[in-house]
């Protein structure tokens, strides 16, 4: 995985393909190591995506969000 996955679902779909391929036992050593590396990266990506929406529920008022955006305009 040299590029960021298109989406969480795309990452999970690719991860499942990788595990199926590894489970098949048909991958050679080089491919196995490459697939494991790619799989770990996908797991890391997916985990980070989940972590990003699991940091705790934060409730803001619209004006609080506006104030926050003004304080850090570069942040999107």
């Amino acid at each position: 995985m040299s590029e960021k996955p298109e989406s969480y679902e795309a990452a999970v779909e690719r991860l499942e393909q990788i595990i199926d391929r590894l489970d098949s036992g048909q991958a050679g050593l080089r491919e196995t190591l490459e697939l494991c590396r790619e799989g770990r990266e996908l797991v890391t990506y997916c985990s980070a995506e989940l972590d990003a929406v699991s940091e705790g529920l934060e409730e803001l008022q619209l004006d609080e969000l506006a104030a926050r955006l003004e304080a850090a305009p570069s942040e999107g």
Partner: protein
Amino acid sequence: MRLAGEGDLLARLEALRKQLRAEGLFELQRQLARPRLPKTIGVVTAEGGAARRDLIAGLRRRGWASTVVWAFAPVQDRRAAPAIAAAIQELAAAPAVEAIVVTRGGGSLADLWAFCDETLCRTVAMLRVPVISAVGHERDSTLIDDVAAVACSTPTHAAEAAVPLDCLAARGALTRSAAALQRVGEGAVEARSRHLVALARGPARALRRERAALNQKMREVRAASERGLGERRAFQRRLASVVLVRAARRAAGAEAQGRREALRRAEVAFRAHEPERTLERGYALAEDAAGEPVASAAAARGAGRVRLRFADGRVGARIDEDGSEG
């Protein structure tokens, strides 16, 4: 009054619905890509409404715990529609907001009429941020439901639409995937490692085998070499003896030749002394009756008769004393 008023509202609603559909405004929001895991969700609702609580409960059940931006607005009077439209626009203007939920509890069509407002609905239709509507109950149908990206029957459903991915289930699946990946990956590497170790032992075994074979060959070569040396010595001894014999024979041959020559010369000398040679020159040999030579006159007288041997034969003769020539 109420029935007539509602019928009137329904008629206006249908006309408006027909018009907006004809303009293609129902399709715009549905074509927007909705994030599966939005980090920030905007919500327009009444500040004290049950919808707020239900929505939060729905998000928690999803395992989602990120940022909710509330834009409270009146949801049931003449001021409601413009306020809701303004709130939605403000939320949409914040780049962090990835989806907007508009919700309120059930009521009559009149109660919900703000959500059928043409301006509000055109605003929603034109937004580039997906709007999820959850207004009224299941059988209530407001115009905002038609123009929104997703129309839900309850705030709980709106929570699921706002966060399409069930984070709890996804976390569990991801953990299983990571474990499977580790198990399969390590298993593959371990299996190959064992194979490699076995292969690595192979050359050592082969080396030991070859070394043993080589040592055996060396022993054989040494033995053969020693045997060969002995044979060579024996051969050399045999060769030397043959050479000596031949030399002896050569030497013996020269000697025999000398002997043969001496013999030939003796034979020639001997033959020169043979009586036959004398007889051949005209002499005769007197022999007695027994064939013994009669070598003197006295012997001849005594014998009385003799035989004379010539080269070409013998004749008898009588000794005559009277014929002596004295």
